[in-house]
């Protein structure tokens, strides 16, 4: 039996569609704003006030950005950081999650509580900082960025929960054939866990790509800054050291806006481009995580 739509029902549907369309536009609009400014002519931007389209389209902003060596260094450093951090992260998370997924592991509950407690209480910014800089002397290196957040407990628990759903028969038959634990992990468990692993990996990549604060506090050399840190210095701190704009004197405030916008676009573009393709992995990750915290 087909349920007929009543008048109020249809009104609601219409209202919903309009509302959601508006929402979509509101979500998109700030992106458009920044893209528009990035393509505007620096000299015109100050004069004409607000316009919907780029003011006298120009690539000036982008030319400045690409001439800025710190942007290139930022990209290189970020990619390097992501690779190092994710290698460490994935290895550590898998090595920790797999044993914990075995229900008969000795002291399993104690170990799990030991780990989960860190999600509820931590030392805070100052002790962490002093540990990394004064005790471990990791400052000014990529390790200060990769090691402190090496294991994301939440992601690790997601891996653990997934490993727990893999039937034990496979492991048992492999053990009968004489396989060791590590072999089982690498040859049997991991291939079966590809979707969760990819999800956790992508999560980590996004977190690491967007991380800037740890770079600012731990790294002194501007040439080692990651992209978001460079961006922060240029756009929010308006640091002259990092934007290579020294030459243009009189129109600096206006030029700066266009250059800032272009820098923003250039550093966010990679994420925005791969995002539509990988978003289903993220969503799946949230769903898996939500089934059992």
């Amino acid at each position, binding site marked *: 039996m087909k349920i007929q739509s009543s008048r109020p029902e249809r009104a609601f549907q219409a209202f919903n569609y309009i509302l959601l369309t508006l929402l979509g536009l509101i979500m998109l609009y700030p992106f458009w*704003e920044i893209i528009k400014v990035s393509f505007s002519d620096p000299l015109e931007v100050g004069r004409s006030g*607000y316009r919907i389209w780029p003011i006298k389209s120009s690539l000036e902003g982008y030319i400045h950005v690409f001439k800025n060596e710190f942007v290139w260094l930022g990209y290189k450093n970020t990619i390097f950081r992501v690779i190092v951090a994710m290698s460490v992260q994935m290895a550590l998370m898998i090595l920790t999650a797999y044993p914990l997924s075995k229900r008969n592991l000795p002291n399993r509950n104690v170990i799990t509580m030991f780990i989960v407690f860190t999600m509820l209480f931590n030392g805070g910014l100052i002790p962490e900082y002093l540990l990394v800089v004064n005790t471990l002397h990791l400052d000014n290196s990529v390790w200060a960025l990769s090691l402190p957040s090496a294991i994301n407990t939440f992601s690790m628990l997601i891996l653990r929960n997934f490993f727990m759903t893999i039937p034990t028969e496979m492991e048992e038959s492999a053990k009968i054939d004489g396989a060791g634990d590590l072999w089982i992990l690498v040859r049997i468990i991991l291939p079966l866990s590809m979707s969760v692993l990819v999800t956790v990996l992508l999560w980590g990549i996004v977190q690491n790509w967007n991380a800037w604060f740890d770079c600012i506090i731990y790294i002194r050399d501007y040439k080692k800054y990651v992209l978001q840190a460079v961006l922060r210095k240029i756009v929010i701190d308006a640091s002259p050291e990092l934007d290579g704009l020294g030459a243009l004197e009189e129109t600096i405030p206006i030029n700066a*806006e266009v250059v800032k916008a272009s820098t923003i676009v250039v550093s966010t573009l990679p994420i925005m481009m791969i995002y539509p393709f990988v978003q289903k992995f993220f969503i799946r990750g949230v769903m898996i995580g939500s089934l059992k915290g």
Partner: protein
Amino acid sequence: MYMHSSALLDQSSRKAQGLRMWKRYVRYRFLLLMLVPGLAYYLIFKYGPMYGLNIAFKEYRLMDGILGSQWVGLKYFKQVFTLAPDFWHVFSNTLIISLYKLIFCFPAPIVLALLFNEVRNLPFKKTVQTISYMPYFISWVVLGGILMNFFSPFNGPFGALLKALGQKPVYILGEVRYFRTLLVVSSIWKGVGWGTIIYLAALAGVDVQLYEAAVLDGAGKFKQMLHITLPSIASVIVIMLIFAVGGIVSDDFDQILNLYNPTVYRVGDVFSTYVYRAGLQNFRYSFATAAGLFRNVISFALIVGTNYISGKFSEYVLW
């Protein structure tokens, strides 16, 4: 596994028990070995700083290290509570902003999820959803830059809107009156789409027949929502609420650090930004650690407490 222990267990039984335990360790030795790097990480990078909390009770000097610094007991805590006038501003800002976010940012994804749930046209739904997730993936540095541009009094669209309404241009980011509103609105913009995911997952589990039965009974849309939809996602809402309430003394450091400036410290400075400035920029290590410890203890107590209370009145708990 420990069996019932009794003083009457004789020697051989106890030995057998010990042997069983030992055998288990041997059997799991490789797996336990695998745990070593991870446990080392937690020990060094999570529990290490907890030991470092000592600094809050000491006159910490870099040269002396933690062990060499002199013990001063509650001196810095006293300082935090009495001598630092801005501390209470910071405390109240943190609470007020969290409260605002609880009132506005918490329900927003729920409402949006309910709206998404009603959409019949699949391509439309997927498109709007994809668009709504996008803001979640950009960093606050980027968003900060976008907002600075957006609210630029002369060139930004907001300034143009004000001009069209005959108002004078106002630089929102520097205005004490609007800063908290900005925090709440930008939080919603950035997080509402993403926040719907967990609720949509719960909504997908609702039995369609319940709706059909309700319609047959003559229930309108609103009644359906009240009696079917909301109760079905109640468990998810409560869990999220526990997190939110337990997190009332915490804040979005990233967001505020990228949006604030000295003119709005009075309303926007929160715990984490305060600790950051006092500790890392002004080098008042012991003081900042004491303030941070105070906050962390409250946060811990809150989340344990809320979970406990929730356990008493319902079956919704985190553990």
